[in-house]
């Protein structure tokens, strides 16, 4: 039981760090794309809109990364019930992508 007091804090600060850095990164990419689209419309490669799309993609990947991280941590701690929950969440998210491709 004593290990439960220290381990969750480590998970939580790790997740906090990843979410913070990811938010900044995606925001900066979107901002760069928007600036690019203002000044170099259509002439630059990649175009502003493509950079913005990449930033949006990063934002969508960030929660997925968070679930993968949690899955890894739960597996490492041999906490298989919660690892299974994380795996189910991941599968559902991937099913969402599949659904989007099918209904295009």
């Amino acid at each position, binding site marked *: 039981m004593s290990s439960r007091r220290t381990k*969750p*804090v480590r*998970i*939580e*600060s790790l*997740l*906090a*760090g990843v*979410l*913070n850095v*990811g*938010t900044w990164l*995606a*925001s900066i990419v*979107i*901002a760069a*794309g*928007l600036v690019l*689209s*203002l000044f170099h419309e259509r002439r630059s490669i990649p175009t502003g*809109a*493509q950079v*913005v*799309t990449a*930033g*949006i*993609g990063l*934002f*969508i990947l*960030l*929660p*997925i990364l*968070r*679930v993968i991280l*949690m899955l890894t941590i739960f597996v490492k701690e041999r906490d298989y*019930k*919660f690892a299974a*929950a*994380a795996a*189910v*969440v991941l599968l*559902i*998210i*991937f*099913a*969402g*992508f599949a*659904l*989007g*491709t099918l*209904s*295009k």
Partner: protein
Amino acid sequence: MNIGTELWLFAVSLGASALGGMLGMASGIFIVPVLTTCGHLEIRSAIGASIVSVIACSCGSAAPFLKGRFTNVRLAIVLETATTAGALSGVLLVGVIRASYLFFIFGMILLLSAYQMLAKRRDPALGPIQPLTGRSMARRLDSSYPDRALGRDIAYRVERLPMGMILMYGAGLISALLGIGSGVLKVPAMDTALRLPIKVSSATSNFMICVTAAASAGAYFVRGDIVAPIAGPVALGSVVGAILGARFLMSISNDRIRLLFVVVLVALAALMFHSAFGPDLLGRTA
């Protein structure tokens, strides 16, 4: 897409997100009505843009709650199986549902938010924790959080998990359908079913929003429903607005501000109902 439109989208989202952040609400609930009524955007483009901003705000604001040990990450991952399943159902539904119905449901959600703003939330009475009994999965969700006023950790239990899961499924569905964080529906699930302390339920619900939204945003992104020149400025504006909103965080107990928000929410609901039933918009429904 010209500079004016980009700036307008950025400014509107910044305002909506700052407004929402002041009261601890997600920005999506303001963004979709403003984009559709003032910006004359098609509701599905507005939803696509809004869902990205919902992810951005949830990810961007999670860190302090995690570090403060308010977020129950185990409970979050269990409930997320229900919210993402709901989101998937919402993605299936949004393709077949008429736009006028979307406006109508949005109006109802706004009214529900207004009602919740009027009714104050109270912490459920935390009785003495009973000794552990079977049902190991549910009991492993029990945790504690630091209470600054009392200066010690308060232990809490998670109750009625199946009921909470059902309500979370509904919250996920509405989140995907309307492009909102759906905190409005998570609050009753957390308060009345799971009986969590407010600080824990706010932090955990906020933590779950980005994963729930990712399930539907992934589908909308591949499908091409997320228009970069609209979603980009909206997401960026929301992040900046959320930072500003947290700075000027006002006390929710301030009755005058609450009343102002109730008026805003009811007015937006009226606009949504007008879009749902208005004669000039009937031809636009797909």
